[in-house]
């Protein structure tokens, strides 16, 4: 069986090291937080100026001055700290975060990321922190469906959408499999409800199938 969105989020969460500093991009990556048990000691960064971010706020907890990068109200657990935007992005760009988890339109076989712009003529460009996040962690995990709705692969030889970052993705999590971007190519780490051989037939990139 291919993974549900919740299962995919749980799979990403499983691979985040104990005590890691992590930024979860807006959208689907936010769901990873639901699968990080407190005893894992994972510390969440939100680029609008907070480390140690808590869960989504509910009811009386909602405070318009306390939001995440997706502008969703969150909570302040013990040990949380605040800083300004330049310090927050210096923290990212300086490579201090262990993991960023991002969504994507496309990832190339060498780890190029496209996730900010579809390149459509009428679209209003909006990059936010995407380009900083793409280069802002020791490891960048992408969470996405492996195919678009019309069946086109999103793990591709070369991105056709405008790039967010060059050679920045370390791992790609999809409903059908987890892929490691290595120097020599893309390695299949695990598959869900499909064999590696079947996966190979549906993708335009050469998959490395076995750990050396």
């Amino acid at each position: 069986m291919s993974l549900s969105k919740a299962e995919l989020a749980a799979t990403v969460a499983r691979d985040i090291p104990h005590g890691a500093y992590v930024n979860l991009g807006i959208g689907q990556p936010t769901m990873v937080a639901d699968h990080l048990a407190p005893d894992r000691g994972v510390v969440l960064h939100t680029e609008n100026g907070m480390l140690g971010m808590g869960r989504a706020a509910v009811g009386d907890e909602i405070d318009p001055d306390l939001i995440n990068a997706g502008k969703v109200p969150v909570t302040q657990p013990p040990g949380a700290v605040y800083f300004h935007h330049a310090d927050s992005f210096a923290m990212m760009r300086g490579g201090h975060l262990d993991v960023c988890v991002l969504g994507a339109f496309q990832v190339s076989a060498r780890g190029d990321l496209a996730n900010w712009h579809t390149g459509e003529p009428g679209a209003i460009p909006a990059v936010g922190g995407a380009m900083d996040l793409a280069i802002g962690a020791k490891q960048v995990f992408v969470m996405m469906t492996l195919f678009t709705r019309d069946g086109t692969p999103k793990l591709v030889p070369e991105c056709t959408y405008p790039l967010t970052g060059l050679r920045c993705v370390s791992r790609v999590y999809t409903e059908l499999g987890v892929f490691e971007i290595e120097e020599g190519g893309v390695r299949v780490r695990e598959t869900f409800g499909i064999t590696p051989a079947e996966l190979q037939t549906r993708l335009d990139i050469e998959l490395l199938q076995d750990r050396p």
Partner: protein
Amino acid sequence: MAGFYDSADAAVAGITDGSTILVGGFGSAGQPVELIDALRRLGARDLTVVSNNAGNGDFGLAALLTAGQVRKMVCSFPRQSDSWVFDELYRAGKIELEVVPQGNLAERMRAAGAGIGAFFGPTGVGTPLAEGKEQRTIDGRQYVLEYPIRGDIALIKAHRSDRMGNLVYRKTARNFGPVMATAATTTVVQVGEIVPTGDLDPEAVVTPGIFVDRVVEIR
């Protein structure tokens, strides 16, 4: 030395047509809505506004855009679920847009405030937003040369000020305020409360009064 004003209108007086205005806030958090409203009433036009977003709903920055006072937006993320005012102006060709990655926006304003002439930053290498920019490989890593972003005016919101203009912020409403305060010729701040000098913890002040020119209390 910070001056203290009785109203938002008094605090923004003298802002001229054609100014570059740095506007604090990330979405609504930290957006200095009352100062922006006063700028709208002042009527200064042909403005360049530097702000992370391009307005929410019909208030604050969005209302300033509706009034036709803004020639150009410099921001990282204009497109939001409630950015219909900007979207319409942009599609009608009535406003210019320069998209800057959020970290570059922050670091370029920091550079302006810190006397840095330019810096090689890691963000955007190989992307359309780095096209035409000087690039250099340093220690095996590629960088893009980025220049400071300066403002004539910064409009920001803080939590408290003392009578020296020292500022503290509140939670994630801090965001761009401290950086913008350093990057503008004149920094105008709306605060929730003005407290006596000595009441703020000297270890916890985020923006020293040297960066603050005008303060107004908006409760």
